[in-house]
């Protein structure tokens, strides 16, 4: 039987993969994609808690839908930033974007 713990484990694995991606990817698009993975891990948590803790109310599911929507908007903005970075730095390798230091 698949229980809450399984979902939580899945979402933890997903989140960790996302974190790992954010911290290690050198490609800006890859970072954005990793952030999406983290979102989805959170969404799974919401839905899972909603399903197992308060099965009658659909609060978690609705919240997940909101997050998906907002994440879409966020992805737009993020891709626009990546586009601008590409234009300014002739590439999207984040190692080269280091002007924010002393």
């Amino acid at each position, binding site marked *: 039987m698949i229980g809450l713990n399984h979902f939580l484990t899945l979402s933890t694995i997903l989140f960790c993969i996302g974190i790992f991606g*954010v*911290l290690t990817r050198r490609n800006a698009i890859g970072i954005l994609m990793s952030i999406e993975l983290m979102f989805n891990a959170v969404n799974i948590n919401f839905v899972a808690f909603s399903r197992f803790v308060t099965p009658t109310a659909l609060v978690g599911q609705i919240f997940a839908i909101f997050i998906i929507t907002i994440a879409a908007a966020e992805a737009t903005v993020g891709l626009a930033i990546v586009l601008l970075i590409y234009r300014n730095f002739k590439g999207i390798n984040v190692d080269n974007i280091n002007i924010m*230091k002393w």
Partner: protein
Amino acid sequence: MLSFAWIIPLLPLLAFITIVFFTRRNQKLSSLISIGAICLSWIFSVIVIASVLKNPVPSEFEFTWLNLMGFQVKMGILIDSLTAIMLFVVCTVSSLVHIYSVGYMQGDPRFSRFFSFLSLFSFSMLGLVLANNFVEIFVFWELVGLTSYLLIGFWFEKKTASDAGKKAFITTRTGDLGFIVGILILTTAAGTFNFREMFHAVETGQIPFGILTLGAIFLFAGAVGKSAQFPLHVWLPDAMEGPTPVSALIHAATMVAAGVYLVARTMTIYLAAPNAALVVASIGCITAFMAASIGLVQNDIKRVLAYSTISQLGYMIMVLGLGGYTAGTFHLYTHAFFKALLFLGAGSVIHATQTNDIWEMGGLYPKMKITAITFIIASLSIAGIFPLSGFWSKDEILTVASHYPNPIFLIVGILVAGMTAFYMFRLCFVTFFGKPRDQHKFEHAHESPKVMTVPLMILAFLSVFAGWVGIPWLQHGYGSFVFHQEPHHAEPNYILMIVSTLVALSGIYLAYAMYYKKSISPEKLKAKFPFPYKVLYNKYYFDELYQIIIINPIMKLSGFLFNRVDVGVVDRLVNGAGNFTVFLSDVKEWFDSHIVDGAVNGIASLARGTGSGLRRIQTGQLQNYAFVIFFGLVLIILFKLS
């Protein structure tokens, strides 16, 4: 009603301030301001004398100047007949000298400064005349001393001139010491500085006789210094180094008159202290004779006039000491005009010939007629020839002297009159007549400009007529004016008049015979009496005497004090203190640079080092930051869970 009289001294003071602060650069304007101020003062002085003539009651105005815990020092003005006459004389002579100076000082680089000094001098003298108490008169007395120093040493590039200024200042200061002691004695005894209150105390016998005599003698010391009386007369001949208008101003009407004025002003005290009065008379008598005899042989035109001034002042002092208040002040009044004229005339001659030595002049009469004629008028007046003003005042002096039981004063008086006539006409004959001795200087000579000759003519007019107010037959003449309380009329003494005129005429004739006709050779006389001539020529060796007994010891003492005490002790102490301070500073400097600075710099470099270490963390790599945030979050969670 006469309270406006304070304006009289104030105007020259204002002129002085204006010139010094504003118009210094504009020479013409400066001289005009100065002349304008003194002429306005002159107009006021005429108003004063007119109203005093109408109503001769003395008037006094005063205000409290200092209030020291109940002890009050006042300033004020006292206007009586004596003040009114002095105001008139000072203003008249001063304004004429101002005008004359425009011509005489033409082209001097310090032209404006000269006029500012003249104004300051007039201010001091007028203030002195108006003073109504001893403190005030002392203040103005010292101001006169200061300005005379400035004026005598006006050409201070010349060593002799600056020395003469110092000599005048220091010598008169010697007398002033006595003056201030006298003031202190008298005011302590009488309890007031005010003249009239003190005279009242003297008249009612509130001051013990001994103290009064002592105070009067000390007071007279001031007059001795200022009026160049024996033995403090030495400064006046040297003061001839100043510009000639200054000599005329200082030695005719103002500074030297201050001493005579002081004795006249405090006459009440001397009348009450006959011993002091006798001292005054004796000093005056000695001075009159000594100075006149020195004047016989001097060769510098201004020095002859200087000794003549000393001698005439001695005359005045002598007669004041004999109680001749009217005669003394009357002679002061007439003397001011003809002596100013003599000095200004001498100035005109010096201006023309560029020399002071009478033996380099000669035959100037056709070249400078106005100067010569006015000079001769003044000489006649000072010699006491009827009916010029000098005659009347000299006659009055001799009349007073003849009333004194001891005939010495009368004899000296007549002798001095003869000597005066002789040396004055010696000057006239040598300077204006005979053959020119220095052809180059003679050709260069010319009459002075109008601005110089007009004052000469005005003074000549006054030298002739000013004395007529004192003609003994006039019942309301000078004597009754000055003595408003008890009308005083000197009875004309015809024998004395004739004798004094004869003596004066014989003096003139002697000069005529020796220096014009050459029937008596001065050289032979010189050869016959070498010792008296040498003594007179060297002015009785007063300067040398003072050099030996006063100046040299003081110089030696000063040298000793300088070399031993100043250099040896004081300087060493000062230097020791200085060195110690330098050492302390060195120590402190080391402390500063090593410890304080080290601490300050250490803190700074610590901050910098920390900063440069820590800034490595800020890589600019977003992922590094994210890693730190994540790692931190994990740590927090682990911490919370445990």
